[in-house]
């Protein structure tokens, strides 16, 4: 066993979600924490994991300390295996060449629907957020991992606006809407790893981060949470994982303690 190490919640989320990415698979990663986690996975257990960027990049070569702040800029393209048009890289998901989409979430509800458009009313938004970007396409077309800080205001009963579809209103509603592939896979937070009940299409607690309790998770979740009968405890980040993270992002631009 590794010795006890210290880490902040963002680092915990990053490491936990990186571990979900299997070798030999293809992941569509957004800028920020998702990208950092995907590179961490490549440098630990998933050497032949392929990363795609929305900007049109297949298999980028990311230099430590130079993580691109946008997945649409040239640093992403240099020394990649292939660059192609934005539309075409997004279409790879529709064709089935992407195993996971990896998103940060502003607000997610019990059905896994994500809101990154606005808080408040459709016609009179309180806060206008940047928008879907490729998020809607990713959530419509492939299996999705969401990494986020676990807070009541972020895990809500019903999002104000479904920007990126999860299981919509639960049950078969996602399939009935025409979204027959993909769907929410996991939500990774600093307290827990959550999956989705296949029949009901609702979020379900599967594992706890070390030290977290079911009660604590419930208190920080804005809806009645399903809990699996047998919960596992996730192993904490190792010194090795944290060391790689710090090499990749020495200024902690993407793992500042405040979350995603």
């Amino acid at each position: 066993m590794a010795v006890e190490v210290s880490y902040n919640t963002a680092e915990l989320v990053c490491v936990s979600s990186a571990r979900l990415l299997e070798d030999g698979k293809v992941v569509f990663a957004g800028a920020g924490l998702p990208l950092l986690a995907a590179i961490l996975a490549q440098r630990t257990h998933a050497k032949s994991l392929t990363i795609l960027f929305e900007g049109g990049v297949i298999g980028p070569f990311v230099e430590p300390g130079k993580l691109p702040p946008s997945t649409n800029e040239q640093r992403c393209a240099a020394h990649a295996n292939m660059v192609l048009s934005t539309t075409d890289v997004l279409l790879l998901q529709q064709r089935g060449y992407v195993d996971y989409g990896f998103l940060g979430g502003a607000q997610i509800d019990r059905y896994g629907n994500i809101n990154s458009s606005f808080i408040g009313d459709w016609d009179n938004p309180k806060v206008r957020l940047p928008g879907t970007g490729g998020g809607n396409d990713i959530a419509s077309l492939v299996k999705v991992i969401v990494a986020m800080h676990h807070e009541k205001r972020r895990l809500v009963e019903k999002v104000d606006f479904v920007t990126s579809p999860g299981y919509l209103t639960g049950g078969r509603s996602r399939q009935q809407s025409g979204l027959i592939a993909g769907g929410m896979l996991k939500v990774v937070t600093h307290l827990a790893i959550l999956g989705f009940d296949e029949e009901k299409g609702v979020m379900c607690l599967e594992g706890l981060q070390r030290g977290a309790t079911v009660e604590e998770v419930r208190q920080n979740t804005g809806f009645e949470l399903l809990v699996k009968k047998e919960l596992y405890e996730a192993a904490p980040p190792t010194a090795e994982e944290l060391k790689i993270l710090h090499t990749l992002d020495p200024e902690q631009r993407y793992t500042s303690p405040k979350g995603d």
Partner: protein
Amino acid sequence: MVSSYLELRAKIEQKDKGLKEKVKSLGEAAALIPDNSHVAVGGCHYSRTPMAIIWEMIRQGKKGLTISKSITATEGDLLLVAGATRHIVTSWFSAGVTWGVSRIMRHYVQSGEARYEEWSHMSLGLRYRAGAMGVPFLPSRSMLGSDVFKRLKDIKEMPCPFTGEKLALIPALNPDVAIIHVQKADPYGNAQIRGLPFMDKDIALAADTVILSAEQIIDNSDIRKAPDQTAIPFFCVDAVVEAPYGCLPHECYGIYEPDFHHMDTYVKLMMERGVDGVKEYLDRYFYGPNTFDDYLDQFSVKDILKATLQAKKSHGG
């Protein structure tokens, strides 16, 4: 609104499609953009933004434009504050993840002064592609079931006549004008794009009028040496403007990275002082200088050199 096919054809039929020189000044080129038209902007986020053309559009006092762009960055702030547009069609709008949500975008959209028409990134790409292909829509499996879909007027769904699967029908977008910045173009409009191509090929073919700015105008014989590198064919292009560093403070692949120092300064001003701050910025950088060279002259040589060297280093050039 999806255009009728015969109207689309009539517009292209009127174009002079001959292999003829189209080199124009920034002023002449931007004059091709009518008020109240739909202008599609090439590049994405802060990459290959046709900033020189936007600079001139704002100076010419364009009004009532609809602006579409795959991802909108600081140029969107500038177009809003300058009053050139109150209708942005895009999938994401802000300077960047690390800079936070644009206060300008929030100001205009939350107040209802401007409309942010939100499409998914791929859907906007398919809209341009349908336009480029001369079809009224393309089928897609994205956006179904989401509120993004429900908020849009010009979009439909139907069961596939072959498989019965439910499909979204993404309507074609044929912009009145496309403005695109490229690394190299010849005087006829044959353009080469290096690095990330984004949606620019489709935008060029979808639009009725195409304005190119280029880091460098090269000879047609250089184009002909590598015809498989031509990204945009001359006959859809109406104007070619030579504009070195024409994306600053944004980047141009292989030639310069963003001027991050300038970007940080701009974002700080914009986030702290909102519309007033951006008005000051426009006065200093857009309305003040007499030429685009004078605009560039306001930048720090040191920062430009750094951005240039970084780009060369990244690409081993």
